[in-house]
Structure formats: structure tokens, C-alpha cells
């Protein structure tokens, strides 16, 4: 066993595209996703733009091949996981030892919050099937059952870094010969609970977000799901078109505050540094960084300073795809892993939308236009979340 882990495929569904090719087209056409809320109902509909998947639950369920009353979180997950598997060309899933490591933060809250309204009026009311799959782990199992994966199925929830941590655990399972293949990533649906929660933190932008711009005012919430298919080295030949290797990763904790990042971004710095160490790369060998880049004053500043500390004076091209997809929370680490891994295969550099003014704190500016065919051999993807959870992944050419 060489211990090398390959990316054999990927799938994404989010507000800018129903599948991965559609998302890439959106980047090409600078078609950002922030819009007035359409599918979720909330008192804040007119105030905050969001990036919803452009489909109602009935349409998603038809696509996923799952019942329409199931949580939107599960429907999105199944669609993206299926696209990821299908893209590998491996054929029947049951012919392999496959695991499923999925991250989410909301679980079935989209249904629970409807249930709770009835329940609060009368503890005996509310439809039980709305809370049957409330738990984060239940969502994962619904999808694992639908995919036909039984062993080494688990769920991670570390706020916005969840999806990235799913890839790390998945890679470890493969390195330890517990399984040969892992579908790893994350999913989250937009809910009133999350929207109102973020509103209390006063970090939502009332316009389309401006990551890494000096005038940024906050984030836009999004939703979606994104998964890569991690494959052990010995099965690489069976993949239709192997994308790249997962060459490094690290998870560190900021240990500064429950939600805010430390001013110098120590957790961010340690995560990026740790990932570089595992991959054996020097900072100047990174060809592109997919930023966490939520668009909040705090995150972008801390992340920017941590990048300066680690990469100065050689700054790679960098951008936040959240300027298109919004912040998809538990899905973001998975969605951005797919974009990052694909960037290695295709030489993509993704644009950072809505950028105008360089942040005063840092000497670099993000990429603002999409391009392909670049020399992109090593890509870093950052995901930093509440609870100080900081994760960084590196994807590398073979």
C-alpha cells in the first residue's frame, strides 16, 4: 500500500449550477448566484440575498430518486454524491469496498423547524415524519442507504470546515485499508434557523458579497452539496480520468473565540502550514488558493494575514468561489474540494466576483476572471469555521 489517495471524480449541486459542468459555465460567464430568496420562506426574504439551488424539493426528489417529503439536505446530498460516483466510470458501487463520509451542519432542520411551529402550540401535534430525520447522521444514512453503501459511513459536523474534515477522515480510512474508495464531502440546505442565526451575528450582507474586498460587509448564505470520490492508489487504473492526488491536509484549532477568528489567524496559519508539511511542498509551489473567503470583515482579514505570513513574498493566484456560490456551510468544504481538484485537472483559475478595492491589511488581490489551461499543479483549499475549526486541503498533479 503506497498510502496515496486519488481523486477519481466529483459532483456538485449549488445555487450557480445543478451539476459540476453547469457550475463551471457559471464561472466562465461570471454568473454569480446571489438573488432574492425564492424557495425558503422567511421574514427576512426581502432583506438578505441568498444563493439557493434553483429547484423545489419535488424536482430535487425526482432527480435524486428519493421521496419528496425527505429533508432537502438529503436530496442535495444524494444528487451530488451520485454525480461524483458516476463521473468515475467505476460502474457498480457494490463491486468495491466503498465508504461514505458526509458532513452537514443543519441535518433535517428544514423539516424540524416546520414541525416545531406546530409542536410549540401543542406538544402532541406536528407530523412525526418531519423530525424522524432531524439528526445530522440520519441525513447521511438516508443517502448511504440510497447509494447502497453500508459500512464505514459516518457524519462530521465542525461548522464551515466540516466538508474538508470529511475528506481527511476518508483519506485516513483508505490509508488504513478499512475501505478502498470513499465518497467524501458535505451538504447543507438553507433553513430559517441558519439564516436567523447568522443574522443575530450581524455578518450577512444585504447585497451580493464582496470577499477579500476592503469594503466587504458580510456573507451571503448559500446551499448545496459537493463530494469527491477518494480512491486508493492501487485502483487508480480503473478510473476513467483520475483528477489528481489529495497530497496534503491538516486540521488545527484557532482557540481564540467561539465564532470570531483570531486577528492574526493562527488557526488558519497552522492548518495551511500543516497541509504543506504533509504534502512536502513549499509555499511557492502552490499555484492557486481557493480561499475560505466568506466576505466577512473578520474572516477575510484573518485569512489574509495568515496567507501573508505563510506565503510572502510569493503569493499564488487566489479567489473565493463563495462570491458565486455563497457560503454553503457544511457543504462548502466539499464543494470547494471539487472545484479545487478540478482546477488541477483542467488548469482552471476561478474568479473572485464583486472585487474592486484591495484590502488594506494585505499586499495581494484576488483573481477576477475565469481562465483555463493554466499551469495549475498544486491547489490549496481553505475552510475555516465556528468553534475555531480550521482545515486546509492540498490537491496535486500526479
Amino acid at each position, binding site marked *: 500500500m503506497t498510502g496515496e489517495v486519488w481523486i477519481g471524480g466529483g459532483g456538485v449541486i449549488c445555487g450557480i449550477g445543478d451539476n459540476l459542468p453547469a457550475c463551471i459555465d457559471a464561472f466562465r460567464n461570471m454568473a454569480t448566484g446571489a438573488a432574492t430568496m425564492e424557495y425558503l420562506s422567511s421574514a427576512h426574504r426581502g432583506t438578505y440575498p441568498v444563493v439557493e439551488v434553483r429547484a423545489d424539493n419535488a424536482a430535487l426528489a425526482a432527480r435524486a430518486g428519493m421521496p419528496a417529503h425527505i429533508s432537502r439536505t438529503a436530496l442535495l446530498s444524494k444528487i451530488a454524491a451520485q454525480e461524483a460516483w458516476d463521473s468515475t466510470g467505476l460502474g457498480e458501487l457494490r463491486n468495491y469496498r466503498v465508504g461514505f463520509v458526509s458532513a452537514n451542519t443543519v441535518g433535517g432542520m428544514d423539516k424540524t*423547524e416546520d414541525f416545531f411551529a406546530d409542536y410549540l402550540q401543542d406538544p402532541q401535534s406536528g407530523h412525526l415524519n418531519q423530525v424522524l430525520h432531524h439528526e445530522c447522521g440520519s441525513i447521511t444514512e438516508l443517502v448511504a442507504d440510497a447509494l447502497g453503501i*453500508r459500512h464505514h459511513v459516518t457524519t462530521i459536523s465542525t461548522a464551515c470546515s466540516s466538508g474538508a474534515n470529511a475528506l481527511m477522515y476518508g483519506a485516513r480510512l483508505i490509508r488504513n485499508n478499512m475501505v478502498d474508495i470513499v465518497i467524501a464531502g458535505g451538504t447543507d440546505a438553507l433553513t430559517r434557523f441558519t439564516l436567523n442565526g447568522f443574522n443575530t451575528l450581524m455578518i450577512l450582507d444585504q447585497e451580493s458579497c464582496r470577499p477579500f474586498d476592503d469594503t466587504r460587509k458580510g456573507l451571503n448564505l448559500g446551499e448545496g452539496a459537493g463530494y469527491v470520490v477518494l480512491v486508493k492508489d492501487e485502483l487508480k487504473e480503473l478510473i476513467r480520468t483520475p483528477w489528481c492526488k489529495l497530497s496534503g491536509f491538516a486540521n488545527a484549532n484557532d482557540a481564540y473565540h467561539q465564532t470570531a477568528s483570531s486577528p492574526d489567524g493562527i488557526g488558519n496559519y497552522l492548518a495551511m502550514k500543516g497541509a504543506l508539511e504533509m504534502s512536502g511542498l513549499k509555499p511557492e509551489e502552490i499555484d492557486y488558493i481557493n480561499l475560505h473567503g466568506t466576505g466577512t470583515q473578520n474572516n477575510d482579514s484573518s485569512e489574509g494575514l495568515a496567507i501573508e505570513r505563510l506565503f510572502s513574498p510569493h503569493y499564488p493566484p487566489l479567489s473565493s468561489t463563495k462570491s458565486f456560490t455563497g457560503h454553503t456551510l457544511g457543504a462548502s468544504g466539499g464543494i470547494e474540494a471539487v472545484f479545487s481538484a478540478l482546477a488541477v485537472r483542467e488548469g482552471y483559475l476561478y474568479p473572485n466576483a464583486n472585487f474592486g478595492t484591495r484590502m488594506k491589511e494585505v499586499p495581494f488581490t484576488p483573481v477576477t476572471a475565469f481562465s483555463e489551461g493554466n499551469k495549475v499543479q498544486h491547489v490549496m483549499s481553505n475552510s475555516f*469555521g465556528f468553534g475555531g475549526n480550521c482545515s486546509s486541503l492540498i490537491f496535486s498533479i500526479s
Partner: protein
Amino acid sequence: MFQPYIFNQLSMSIYIQGTGCVSPLETAAEGPFPAVVNPAYDGARLKVSDPDYKQWIDIKQIRRMSRIIKMGVAAAKLSLQEAGVQKPDAIITGTAYGCLDDTGVFLSKMINQQEEMLTPTSFIQSTHNTVAGQIALMLSCHAYNNTFVHKGFSFESALLDSIMILKEGKSKHILMGGMDELTTHSFNIISRFNRFKKEPVTHNELLHSATPGTVAGEGAACFVLGTEKGDNSHARLTGLTTSYKPGSTAEIAADIIAFLAVHEIAQEDIDLLITGRNGDSEGDIWYDHVERTLFPDQAVGCFKHLCGEYPTAVSFGMWVGCKVLSSGHIPADVLFKGKTSEKIKKVLIYNHYKGTHHSLILLTGC
């Protein structure tokens, strides 16, 4: 389907260097299994016996911690204290429900106030990784930090993550644990799924009740795992596996036989079988079958009559196993069948959650 295991590939030993437990018993202190056992059943509901959390948490920080966070922090600190470790090299938790109380508070306010004038505290405390995050914050620990939220496998996933990281050789001490809380809302809602006893029952009667349903519980149990034997290490973690939705009792029996064989242990070598028997006549059939067919002569211990049923209750079972190995005998309140022996070296914990999530944990005395 054959499941590869982790322990048969390990060249190192994994010692349990410290344990900490907050439960419906008086367990929130260093020392042996409590002499007095009187968990307070409130109908079919068991509540944690809260210690004075100010022993471990500064008053300024306590205000922003809900019960489950306090439980988790107390258990964590107790385990670190016993292990003699200030700052672990990783913090990994497993919790199926996360911070239920704060979730309920925020949800209720959101609905009752029609999404207006909501405050952040209960929202930020509602996220599942808050316990692990809070522990890191209190210890200023920048190390690896992860939280698993997978129903009846939340604790086992955290254990596997811990083992895989220790195997990489860069970490000396890992703090890990399992925790879940019970709130009035969660008890009411889960009750509607007919999970709990309808008739009154005591902890002495529960496991023999032969009626459907169990009692709801809660708790937090933490362990410091490391590759060196600490001063207070009395047990090694020597086996771990999970089985999701086994088709029959025959299948789980075959899984257990295969597990023991791979770990080169004969059935007779098991000195104590600890099961997750919880008094539910339907669910306990699994344990009846395994005890009768695989371990007919061995002592059997139980723990859910003391902590109640919850997705990470197996962590309390593992804590009980550690206490048995450190004291060398099986407490009367734990012994379900058979008798305590002179020498207890190998303890096998077999637990299932709702009949779908089955796990095996093997502990060896040291």
C-alpha cells in the same frame, strides 16, 4: 460482508491514560466506581447528576455554557487530570444530538418572535462542535479538533479517528469522548415514537422488565488515549468494530466470532461481557442470543439501567469497563449474570443502538 479492522494492523498499544465521566451516578470525580448507586428515575427519564461545574470552569465562562457543554468540559478535564496531561495533541468528540437545549431555545424564540429580535448566544452554542471547540478554547489548544455526529456510531467514529491519528505517530495524547443530553423537548418528542417505558420502573427492575421500551438518559464520558502506559493506565483499547443493520442475530454472532478470531482471542478468554441491554424486550433479544450462544459461562455486566439510553451511551459502558479493569472486580450494580472472578483481564463491550447500530469494543487490562 467482511469488515477490515484497525487493531490487527497496529504495531503499537493504545493505553487509556485517563477517564472522566458525568452521568446520572456520582461519577464526576476521580476514584473508583461509586459505592452508592441511586440514579434518579423521573418516570422514564434519567437526568445527569450535575456536579459543581465551577470546579473546572471559571464563573465568567460558565454563563455561556449550556448543560451539555459543561458536562463535556467536566468529563474532559477529569480525564486530562487523571492522565496528567495539560494539552492534548488532538480533541475528538462524538455527539448524535449536539447541543439540543440551545437548539430548542433558539428555535422556540425564532418561531414565537417571528424571526425578530433574536440573540446570538443560543445560536452559536447550538452547533454540534461547540463542546470540542469550547474545550480547545479553555486549554488554548491549537491541535486537531473534530466532531462526529452519526447517531449510534458517533462515539465509535471518534474512537476510530483517534486510533488512526495515533497510528501516524505524531500525537502522544488524544482527548476523545462521547456525550449527549436530554431536554424536555427531546424527551417529549422521542416519547412520541414509543421508545420509552410507559409504566414506572426502577433501575433494579429495568433490565428484567420484559416489556417494550427503555428509559431515556444522558451523559458525557471522556478518555485520554496514548501510546505510552501512564501512571493511571489500567486498560488498553485492543479492539473496535461496528456493524450497521445486521440482518439477524445469527449475523451479529458471526461478526463477533470473526472479530475475536482476527484479534486472536478465544471466546473463553473474555472475562466479562458488558452489554448495552436496556430493558426493551424487542432490542434485548440481540443480547440474549449473543450471551446464550457465545458466552454462556462468562460474567455479564450492564450499564444502561444506570445511565439510560442515548446514542453515545456506549461511552459510559466503556468507562464502566475501565473501572472494572482498574479495580479488578465487577461492581454489584453492574453485574447482570454470573459472578465476578479473581482475575479480569479481557472485557468485551457489545452494544447496539435501536437494533441498527451495533459495535464491539475490546479492553485489555494492563
